[in-house]
């Protein structure tokens, strides 16, 4: 297994070029660029409808690997078909990798994902989670965090909180499928690439969820993509951990989390979240963090 110790180890070979129509500073684009460094050109990216669907635009593509875009709800089953197609034709060494947004993963494509995971198909499923339906202009998904404003959870007189639904605990759900499940962050590329490298070697399904900072939807200056990604980890909004064989492993432990305030104030989507909303969000984060600390190195699901 290819293991990376520091940024210096990260391969200088890219299988991703510029020229896409993704936003300047796009987090999910960066995620795919980094992933392809480990995956290489003999990879098929299976994409579900979302922001990344617009990376290729006929007749051009930034990818030096293959790509299939099918629809929004079927990336995992498309990947299963591609996997078995390749295996049957003697191309078992090619990688089949889903790159799907959170709407496609948590919501509309969940049945397809769950089945592929339960069947332990040899697929790497990367969910680039921008916590919304991003490509349609930032609407609510079950990955949207409590207190976030979206176009379908706007703040108003009746509801100043914006989104009042607590997002799904997807890692736990995927961990319960007895597959390898991990979170990753753009601000910790060594950790991300090591997880991918590990997934690539596994003879089964791997689920990696990458927080995909979204400059347009989260409403921040595109230069801050990495800063915000890092803060998400430091605040416990996006802890880095993995679950394998039901066991939890916290990858980045901190004695103390930074207060969530610092993360919120950098982004337009949390502007005007009332203090009780911030408090509730902090509670939710603290609860989750305490749970991760408690079960670290133990059976979690």
């Amino acid at each position: 297994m290819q293991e990376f110790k520091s940024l210096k180890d990260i391969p200088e070979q890219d299988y991703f070029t510029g020229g896409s129509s993704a936003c300047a500073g796009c987090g999910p684009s960066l995620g795919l660029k980094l992933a392809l460094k480990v995956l290489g050109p003999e990879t098929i990216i299976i994409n579900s409808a979302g922001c990344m669907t617009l990376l290729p635009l006929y007749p051009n593509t930034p990818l030096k690997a293959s790509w299939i875009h099918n629809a929004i709800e079927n990336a995992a089953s498309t990947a299963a078909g591609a996997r078995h197609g390749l295996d049957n034709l003697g191309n078992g060494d090619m990688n089949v990798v889903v790159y799907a947004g959170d709407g496609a993963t948590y919501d509309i494509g969940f049945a397809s994902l769950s089945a592929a995971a339960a069947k332990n198909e040899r697929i790497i499923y990367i969910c680039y989670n921008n916590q919304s339906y991003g490509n349609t202009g930032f609407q609510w998904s079950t990955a949207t965090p409590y207190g976030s404003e979206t176009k379908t959870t706007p703040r108003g007189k009746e509801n100043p909180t914006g989104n009042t639904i607590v997002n799904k605990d997807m890692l736990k759900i995927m961990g319960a499928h007895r597959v390898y499940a991990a979170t990753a962050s753009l601000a910790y590329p060594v950790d991300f690439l090591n997880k991918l490298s590990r997934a690539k070697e596994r003879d089964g399904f791997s689920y990696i969820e990458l927080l995909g900072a979204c400059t347009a939807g989260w409403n921040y200056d595109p230069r801050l993509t990495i800063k915000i990604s890092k803060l998400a980890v430091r605040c416990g909004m996006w802890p880095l951990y993995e679950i394998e064989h039901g066991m939890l492993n916290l990858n980045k432990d901190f004695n103390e989390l930074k207060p969530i305030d610092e993360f919120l104030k950098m982004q337009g989507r949390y502007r005007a979240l009332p203090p009780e909303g911030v408090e509730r969000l902090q509670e939710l984060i603290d609860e989750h963090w305490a749970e991760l600390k408690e079960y670290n190195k133990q059976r979690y699901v």
Partner: protein
Amino acid sequence: MKQTLVTGNEAAAWGARLVRAKYIPNFPITPQTECIETLARWSADGELPGTYFDRMESEHSVMSAAVGAAAVGSRVFTATSSQGLLLMHEVLYIAAGMRLPIVMATISRGLSAPVTLWSDHNDFLDQRDSGWLMFHAENNQEVLDMVLQAYRIAEDPRVLLPAMVNMDGYVLSFTDEPIIIPSPGQVEEFLPKYAPAHTIAKNRPVTVGPPVLEEYSIFRAQNHVASRNALNVIEEVQDDFEKIFGRRYHLVDEFMLEDAELVLVTQGSMSTTAKAAILEMRDEGIKVGLLRLRIIRPWPNEAVAGALKDAKAIAVIDRNVAPGKGGIMFPEIIETLYNLDRLPLVSGFVVGLGGNPQTESKVKEITHKLMDDLAAGRPRMEWNDLEEI
């Protein structure tokens, strides 16, 4: 040649087995289930070497997985019915747009609500504009033969489109009939190895299904032209098919049309019943014949118009209904005749929905009504199942 007793479902499964389909994603639904159960049993017994039988969690995922496998160059087979076919609907357009020659057996069953397990053709005909090639078999032999031909036509470089082979639920799917099952060697001779040039392969990175701008219309036009090309290919393959298997098919099935003044237009299994009724009516001196539609897409304009041009009156028997309009094939037939010099009278009959009986007496009754219409010079649209209510 030796015959074997098999159901329509098994005939389709034999087709998949003989074409050496590499990937069979599947999901159960009545009345198709027996088809995939047959394949599952063969797979478990090692009778499908090199084939992956993949149990999916929905028909939507079945067609999605079919697309995934076909996009990397696999020969794919699957089967479905009714609600399952409708759940696939979205991905059917995608498979056709990507020009992936997947073949699927569709076993027709009426649509909910209310629930029926029995056959009519609304599920199949709902896919009419999806870009797929659409074939409709009359009997179990034709089901198997059509599956073999479907792959040959779909994989032709001039076509490269997915194809469905339809049979009527229960009436064919669950009915044993003696058919000839060809040898693997014969099928190998008829259908070469699938070697696509437009799919993903090792050392050939391809982007499949990207967004396009104004080129959209070009690609839709190519989908159309490819489908029209299939008409020639369908006719072309018959020589090879006849040479190897000793049977021949045509774009349309014509029965006693030479001197027919009255023509019944049918699809699927009820055509057999109608043919029996026609033989009896011929004995009574009624000049009636039958045109069976076996290729629905691409639409064989010339073959249909040619077969109908001398008729005085036509009864289009639709085992389907488009509420608010009438039978689905009724206007298609009229449109096909529209530019002829002399126009026959055309009446439409909606018959046999949700498995309502398809009897010879019904066919005779329709023929007599058509004679009345011709005499009165006034066509009708009739809901035939409701006569006894």
